[in-house]
């Protein structure tokens, strides 16, 4: 019985961690689906979002809601600016040039944060305090549950947005055939900008939950969740939105269960080993689609 309780607790905190990865992975996969590029600076947006919360609450003394809004706005503006300044001029360039630029932007953001904040750990303000819930002998952490609920709502909202709205459908059209989308009157450039804005907003929310979960932030904080979310996106099938959600959640669960029952030190190695196995068995990822070769 005790084992079952601890398994359920670990599973739920794994789901919660995984849903943070999923939020980040969505940014990777949407940008890949629409702009056909890997935005390796995406992870660092999380760090910027988390610092925006710290500055708003700790230095400016703003209430949590304002801090969250500021963080989202900062990340959206930053994401769109990065696309406009660094990636848009490279629209016709080779994928390798774009990839190297993205890595460059990632280092740029880390170094900028290092100059402004130094290399110290900043403690993340407790802006979300929720009491634990006890359900029949099972104690659930309030923050974990909130993370799970909010990310689930965001993912449902995103799916509805992509599936049902005019802009969401235009995004799918661009991701399938840019030229044909242009002929319909859809501006590919605007659609790409919207995609970066949405991805960055989700990254800001991920930064908030990531900071809350771990309690500390430094300029390199975004790198590891960024890489893991990228792994999650590939795991689920890069370009696929349900794939990013599934990949992120599975990754979080595997990581947490490995930590709890195998070894904390080995948990990352296990996560990446699972990715390698999945890609050997199914190179397009769990929910990935075979790319249509143009005749």
């Amino acid at each position, binding site marked *: 019985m005790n084992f079952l309780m601890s398994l359920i607790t670990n599973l739920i905190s794994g789901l919660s961690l995984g849903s943070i990865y999923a939020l980040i992975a969505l940014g990777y996969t949407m940008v890949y689906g629409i702009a056909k590029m890997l935005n390796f600076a995406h992870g660092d947006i999380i760090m910027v979002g988390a610092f925006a919360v710290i500055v708003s609450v700790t230095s400016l003394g703003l209430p949590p809601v304002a801090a969250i809004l500021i963080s989202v706005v900062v990340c959206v503006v930053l994401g769109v600016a990065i696309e406009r300044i660094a990636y848009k001029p490279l629209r016709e360039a080779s994928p390798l040039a774009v990839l190297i630029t993205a890595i460059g932007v990632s280092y740029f953001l880390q170094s900028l944060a290092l100059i402004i904040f130094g290399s110290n750990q900043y403690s993340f303000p407790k802006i979300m305090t929720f009491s634990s819930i006890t359900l029949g002998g099972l104690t659930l952490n309030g923050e974990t549950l909130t993370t799970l609920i909010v990310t689930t709502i965001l993912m449902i909202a995103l799916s509805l947005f992509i599936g049902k709205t005019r802009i969401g459908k235009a995004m799918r*059209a661009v991701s399938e055939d840019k030229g*044909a989308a242009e002929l319909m009157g859809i501006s590919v450039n605007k659609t790409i900008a919207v995609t970066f804005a949405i991805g960055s907003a989700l990254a800001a929310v991920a930064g908030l939950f990531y900071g809350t979960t771990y309690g500390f932030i430094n300029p390199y904080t975004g790198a590891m969740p960024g890489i893991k979310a990228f792994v999650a996106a590939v795991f689920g099938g890069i370009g696929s939105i349900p794939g990013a959600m599934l990949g992120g959640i599975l990754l979080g669960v595997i990581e947490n269960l490995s930590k709890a029952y195998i070894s904390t030190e080995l948990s990352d190695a296990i996560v990446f080993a699972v990715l390698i196995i999945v890609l050997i068995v199914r190179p397009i990822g769990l929910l990935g689609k075979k790319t249509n070769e143009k005749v």
Partner: protein
Amino acid sequence: MLQVNNINVYYGKIHAVKDISFHVDSGEIVSLIGANGAGKSTIIHTISGLLRSKTGNIQFLGKDISKTEAHKLVYQGLAHVPEGRRIFLEMTVMENLEMGAYSQGKVNTNDIADVFERFPRLKERQKQIAGTLSGGEQQMLAIGRALMSHPKLLMLDEPSMGLAPLLVEQIFHIIQELNQAGTTVLLVEQNAEMALQIANRAYVLESGHVVLSGTGKELMESDRIRKAYLGG
């Protein structure tokens, strides 16, 4: 309505379209015919802004559109049904039509009803993913999608490609109907016989040059055309 003046278009180093001029008057069906690689599709892509000419200009409804971005042209009344149909294969038939109406802002249900009346098969399959349609149905969807933008000039690139003869007849009949309803048509075709039959006027392209032009009837009777394009 459309005036193309001295355009030269390159694919990298390949000079695909060489100093071509032609025009389409309001209410006409004009066909561009020629073999594969003659430059027909390149011309249409240049008119829609997906490719650029190094020289000359393109006037549409009195405005120079040679530097207008592709996605803005549909708002001016120019629709392009691309070669190979290029419908959105992962979206439903209905969603494809909605994308066709993107330039209209809101989707007008009357427009959808009009397309369904013209293409009853699309109505039956409106919830289906477009990738599951047959070639003929996909061509109907591509044309229906273009009609959703209320085009003044409809450009069709190889609408007969890969279709059975009966379906080709059907598609060409629909093109004629659309023209009679007031839409001007620019048609690019390898199927010279069909294209000349319905055309008011036509231009014959060979390796990037216009080598002949005239009314559809004149060209069908020309020896050169009969030998080269109509099999005797």
